[in-house]
């Protein structure tokens, strides 16, 4: 399977994504620069974490206007699987490929810790066949998912909330909401289900050496779905 990993100035998880695709999964991956317009025929596009353009203006706002995002939007419109992780999620909301916005954490602190998330909602290329609770690292300052009441109701009604912060046993409550996100939302998908954005970092826990390896499940799901069709 072929992974394109987008690199913006200030991305810092692009190498981690390439490593998971190549070293952990044994697949093919390459980086695509922010100023390129050709993704080079990938099966999956990954938008990595980091601080694109120094988080100037709003996180992801400047990156959303870079040339490569036109190619990513076209890929997404054609049904291609896109996963935005952390800053990648922020870029997807600023690009209007996903609804809502990510605001400053309620506690005003940069949070760098492990969080539990429950896989919820409809199946997506990255969550099909993935069930239960995953422990994944979070590392963000602007992770508080926000959308208006109508958008939230639509997301819930259409099963588009695909990750929710929870306790180790899957309990969803304020006590397990690290950043004040609406409805404990850690990740959502678009109407077609092919574009997924999430604040936690599956690529930082995709092998046991870096935790428990549970993040690998998302990449395996994509392999089963996209890889199986090839």
């Amino acid at each position, binding site marked *: 399977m072929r992974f394109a990993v987008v690199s913006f100035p200030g991305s810092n998880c692009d190498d981690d994504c390439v490593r998971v695709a190549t070293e952990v999964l044994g697949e093919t991956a390459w980086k695509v620069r922010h100023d390129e317009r050709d993704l080079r025929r990938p099966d999956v596009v990954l938008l990595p974490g980091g601080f694109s353009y120094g988080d100037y203006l709003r996180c992801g*706002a400047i990156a959303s*206007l870079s040339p490569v995002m036109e190619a990513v939007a076209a890929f997404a419109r054609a049904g291609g699987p896109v996963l935005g992780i952390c800053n990648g999620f922020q870029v997807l909301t*600023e690009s209007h490929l996903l609804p809502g*916005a990510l605001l*400053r*954490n309620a506690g005003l602190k940069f949070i760098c810790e492990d969080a539990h998330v429950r896989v919820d909602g409809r199946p997506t290329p990255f969550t099909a066949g993935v069930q239960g609770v995953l422990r994944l690292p979070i590392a963000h300052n602007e992770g508080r998912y926000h959308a208006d009441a109508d958008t939230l109701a639509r997301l819930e009604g259409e099963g588009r909330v695909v990750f929710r912060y929870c306790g180790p046993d899957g309990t969803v409550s304020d006590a397990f909401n690290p950043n*004040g996100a609406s409805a404990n939302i850690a990740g959502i998908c678009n109407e077609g289900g092919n574009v997924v954005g999430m604040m936690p970092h599956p690529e930082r826990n995709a092998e046991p050496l870096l935790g428990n390896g549970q993040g690998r499940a998302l990449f395996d799901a994509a392999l089963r779905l996209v890889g199986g069709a090839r």
Partner: protein
Amino acid sequence: MKGRVTVRLKPDVLDVEGKAVSGALARLGFDDAHGVRVGKVFEVELGDVDPAVARERLEAMARKLLANPVMETFSVEVE
């Protein structure tokens, strides 16, 4: 022609930065400062254009980039 775009968080969006500033003001003795909201101001040089055109340009800039309508509102002034 000089323009100014002021971007504010919508009233229903929790402004944690504003809350922190309120708290800090209170510690300085300004405990009458409630409900501080933090926004952004963009000053833009537009050259020699008609004020109505300048206003239109600034509004377009705000809609397309300077403000995110999901969480923010904006106002425009020209001078």
